[in-house]
């Protein structure tokens, strides 16, 4: 347990700083004053689902007020978007996958893990099965309907088919080399 939780937990403390003043305005965070007290424990899943629980409450709260907070209904809330902006660039190579590096729970995810392992590049994985909000939000964030999703240098590189194709053609190695040198 400790191993993959560590991997997952690392990028997510960003969530706490995702409650920007702008977000607070959009979603009426100020009505829920004790925002930060809820997230004392750094459990990744709790941390990432936290803005959503808040968002939905905030939406309810603000439904009678004049300002609109329609963005809260989307799977990709502004908070998740800004957190993901940070997460995808927190490491050169990030793989959002089903399962973990050492225990992939899907053949497609496994393929990409094996490719990356064979290329000997350091990479982080995030298990999207642990968090439904993250899973749905990421589909919108990457405009990609399935997992795995590979990010290189903060940019969406592709899913399994693309990673495999690019691996065969050498493009993946090129992209990774470029990322490692940058």
């Amino acid at each position, binding site marked *: 347990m400790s191993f993959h939780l560590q991997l997952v937990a690392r990028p997510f403390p960003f969530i706490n700083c995702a409650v920007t003043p702008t977000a607070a305005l959009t979603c009426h965070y100020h009505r829920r004053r004790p925002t930060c007290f809820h997230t004392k424990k750094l459990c990744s899943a709790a941390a990432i689902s936290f803005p959503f629980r808040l968002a939905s409450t905030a939406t309810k709260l603000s439904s009678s007020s004049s300002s609109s907070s329609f963005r809260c209904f989307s799977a990709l809330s502004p908070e998740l978007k800004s957190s993901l902006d940070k997460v995808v660039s927190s490491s050169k190579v990030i793989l959002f996958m089903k399962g973990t590096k050492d225990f992939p729970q899907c053949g497609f995810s496994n393929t990409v893990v094996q490719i990356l392992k064979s290329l000997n590049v350091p990479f982080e994985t995030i298990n999207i099965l642990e968090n439904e909000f993250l899973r749905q939000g990421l589909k919108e964030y990457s*405009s*990609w*309907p*399935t997992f795995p999703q590979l990010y290189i240098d903060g940019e*969406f*590189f592709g899913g*399994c088919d693309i990673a495999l194709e690019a691996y065969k053609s050498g493009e993946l190695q090129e992209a990774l080399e470029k990322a490692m040198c940058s």
Partner: protein
Amino acid sequence: MAVSKEQVESTLKSKLNPYHLDVTDTSGGCGASYSIEVVSEQFEGKRLLERHRLVNAALVEEMKHIHALSITKALTPDQWKEQEAKTTKEAA
């Protein structure tokens, strides 16, 4: 709710006007998993990622019921002809 192979084919045909299309049901009968080979002029000048995005966009409705979609080939007609020529040469 499953999506039939015919449905996937007809959607792709109408949206991508493919030069060649091969849809294989890889689900073992439940219709939730497909493998696709598609050759279309619309891929001209586009990177693989953009080509896959086109296919994903075309199948956005179907994707709600498809669990896994594998795009094994997304080529332009020229690339396709080139590949065909190569394989026939090798076979000969």
